[in-house]
């Protein structure tokens, strides 16, 4: 029995037909030729979503007017507010707080804890439940230079080199300097790190690291971090109040242009609430659910770039938001594994990428962005992709080769998690190949911040995946969990300082939203979209066509 449909089993026969010859060649060290440097550039330019000119265009309104972003991002930035500002009564605040945190993932929760320790009252607005986030999904680990042969200095070099030297140096210095403090903080909160019997942290290398500094908690590091910090926030419920299913929809400014709160929206009762806050943190995470150019994503359900949209309307500039991390091998079958990351290790062990004819079409270990471009080209341009029963395109990743090359049992031993994730659906990846396609993984850029998580608007902070500059145009594994906690905590501390001395204005206003709407009208744009999106829409066409309202 196999979890593949009979039609797909039929196609797998073509893969099996070419396999012996391919394995034979691989044994002799012969492989599909890699692209030349010129071809790489050409393939990237034509097929990689970050380079390709169609699918990208300049945004026509706002602070970053003229900057080229993916179509979906530009369109979103040019959309009008979902809030009818005239219908909001700002004269009366439904909630008043010292710090309003928007987004209860890793960054937001860390900020809340840090601010509470400084004596602040914190209100958290979040879209789904506390902790339903990208943070909970991180498996791999978190970096921090705490071993004797390592130091923040080397961590710094790794981060900035990995980001092709496009990162903000000050942010990288803050990130790497604070890393040991963060790991220590998590330890003191009772996180179950993987340790040796004497307490020494178990550390591993990650892509692009010069030292072994990847800390983990099994293969659910992000989930363990999230549930520990959330549990601690719940212990401090007297000072940290969480409003679930109540996302923010617009920021509120005062007459001096400082941030003074936000309008929240109860997803269930559809009411709005006015929050008056002495300081505000945007920690809404990434944008995977925009499905840039139709890509599947590894991100959670609420990753719709809301924070970027709200901040942009308030005049905050963005940085590197045109740069997106795609992982070349995301699963596209079975449906429950769609978007699931298939680690690079599979190709490292010798598995090749094959089209519907069972033929190779690229060198399997090109750099990530190039490899993604090759797969996209084969499916979209050459037309030799494989179609799944749910209408997805992809190519084969021929994992059974691994056992043939390295010996029976290698797949199970070297890739235990992936083996189980497919076995659950009756697919034995040591016997049959996987179906893959590039998947949208991480928002490299975002809101411009400084090393204290301050934005260009007074009283407004930002931290985590929604902010840009820390990783430049490419992020290394293990630095994002770190990033969200470092800059989350820094935001909480800085907000506490600010709140104690700031002179807040008395008049709450949404006029920046009205002004932004007018700018859209003036530019002659009417794309019919209302944002922040809040949730993606997955209703199929046949349902939509019949919906009455």
């Amino acid at each position, binding site marked *: 029995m196999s979890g593949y449909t009979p039609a797909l089993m039929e196609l797998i026969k073509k893969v099996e037909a070419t396999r012996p010859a391919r394995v034979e060649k691989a044994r002799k060290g012969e492989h599909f030729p890699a692209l030349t440097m010129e071809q790489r550039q050409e393939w990237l330019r034509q097929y990689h979503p970050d380079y390709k000119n169609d699918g990208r265009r300049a945004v026509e309104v706002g602070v970053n007017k003229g900057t080229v972003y993916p179509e*979906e991002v530009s369109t*979103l930035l040019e959309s009008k507010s979902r*809030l009818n500002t005239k*219908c*909001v009564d700002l004269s009366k605040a439904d909630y008043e707080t010292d710090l309003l945190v928007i987004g209860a993932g890793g960054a937001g929760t860390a900020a809340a804890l840090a601010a509470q320790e400084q004596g602040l009252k914190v209100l958290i607005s979040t879209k*789904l*439940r506390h902790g339903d986030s990208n943070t*909970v*999904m991180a498996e791999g680990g978190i970096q921090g230079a705490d*071993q004797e*042969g390592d130091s*923040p*200095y080397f961590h*710094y070099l*790794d981060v*900035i*080199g990995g980001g092709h*030297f496009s990162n903000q140096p000050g942010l990288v*210095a803050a990130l790497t*300097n*604070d890393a*040991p*403090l963060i790991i220590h903080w998590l*330890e003191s*909160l*009772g996180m*179950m*790190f993987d*340790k040796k019997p004497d*307490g020494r*942290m178990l550390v591993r290398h990650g892509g692009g690291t*010069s030292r072994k500094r990847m800390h983990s908690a*099994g293969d659910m590091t992000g*989930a363990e971090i999230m549930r520990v910090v959330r*549990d601690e926030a719940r*212990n401090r419920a007297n000072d940290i109040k969480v409003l679930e299913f109540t996302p923010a929809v617009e920021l509120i400014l005062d007459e001096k242009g400082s941030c003074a709160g936000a309008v929240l929206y109860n997803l269930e009762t*559809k*009411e*709005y609430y006015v929050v008056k806050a002495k300081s505000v943190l945007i920690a809404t995470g990434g944008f995977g*659910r*925009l*499905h840039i150019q*139709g890509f*599947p994503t590894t991100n*959670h*359900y609420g990753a719709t770039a809301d924070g970027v949209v709200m901040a942009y309307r308030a005049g905050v500039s963005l940085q590197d938001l045109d740069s997106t991390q795609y992982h070349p091998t995301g699963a596209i079958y079975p*449906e*429950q594994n769609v978007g*699931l990351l298939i680690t690079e290790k599979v190709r490292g062990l010798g598995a090749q990428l094959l089209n519907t004819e069972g033929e190779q079409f690229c060198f399997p270990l090109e750099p990530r962005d190039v490899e993604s471009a090759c797969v996209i080209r084969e499916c979209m341009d050459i037309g030799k992709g494989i179609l799944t*029963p*749910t*209408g997805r395109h992809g190519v084969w990743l021929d994992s059974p080769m691994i056992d043939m090359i390295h010996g029976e049992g290698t797949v199970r031993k070297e890739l235990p998690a992936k083996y189980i994730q497919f076995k*659950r*659906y009756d697919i034995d990846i040591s016997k049959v190949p996987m179906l893959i396609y590039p998947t949208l993984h991480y928002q490299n850029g975002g809101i411009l911040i400084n090393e204290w998580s301050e934005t260009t608007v007074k009283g407004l902070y930002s931290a985590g995946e929604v902010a840009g500059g820390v990783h430049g145009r490419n992020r290394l594994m293990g630095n994002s969990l770190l990033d969200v906690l470092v800059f989350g905590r820094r935001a909480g501390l800085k907000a506490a300082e600010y709140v104690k001395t700031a002179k807040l204005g008395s008049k709450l206003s949404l006029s920046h939203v009205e002004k932004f709407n007018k700018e859209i009208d003036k530019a002659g744009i009417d794309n*019919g*979209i209302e944002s922040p*999106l809040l949730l*993606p*829409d997955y209703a*199929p066409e046949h349902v939509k066509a019949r919906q009455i309202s």
Partner: protein
Amino acid sequence: MADDCKKAKTLATGDRTIPPPDAKMITIYIMGREYQVPETLTIMKAIEYAGYSYTRGCGCRGGICGACGTFYRFLGDYRLRSGLACQTVAEENMVIMQLPFFPANRPGYDLEQMTGDAHEELRRLYPEVFKCVGCGTCTRTCPMDIDVMDYIALMKRGDLKGAAHKSFDCVMCGLCASRCPAQISQFNAAMFVRRIYGKNGLPVAGHLAKRVEEVKAGKYESMLKEVSSMNPEDVKKLYVEREREPDMAEAGKWMPKDTSKL
């Protein structure tokens, strides 16, 4: 909020199911109401295909957040089954009900104050744990295949290390608690046990504490300041020339040739 009737256009599409014309359709019952959906979808995507939009009951869509706990039966079969909607394939004649929320007991506590006997603290916070009747329903219910009854038994016995490790994969979906005749909120008790074990049971990382002192004393500030104000070409050179710790090196033992930046 003024919700006028102009329908907003949609933007995100990538997870929408687009079955080919010859897709095999199956019948499922969402809270008793019959729908036709293509085969091989997860329960979550099948529910969306039927036209529902999630607010509750959907989080990571990847089997780790625990938002999508689900009970189901097959028509004509008395057995009650459970799973995560994002990880379970919808099958013919499934009768489905999601459980997006279940009230659970969670007393607050101050971890910093808990330096005494952890087992006693557990007894104080969660006395109900000690009333487990050993029916095994929780274990049968758990979508993560955790032996819940066993971790509860370990807690009763005072083996908090065992309970912490046994419960580690818990996604806190709440399904076990919804079925417990002893009214135990197993997953919250387990969260407490893991934290107190993580803090007081696991040995402390000495090298980390030492590094924290160094960072707090500002040891790395000047180094980082220097390298972050260098011109990019010089940083590139340092990056390319940096030494790589061998994969097999024992942690804490390996030292780079240049120790001036440690």
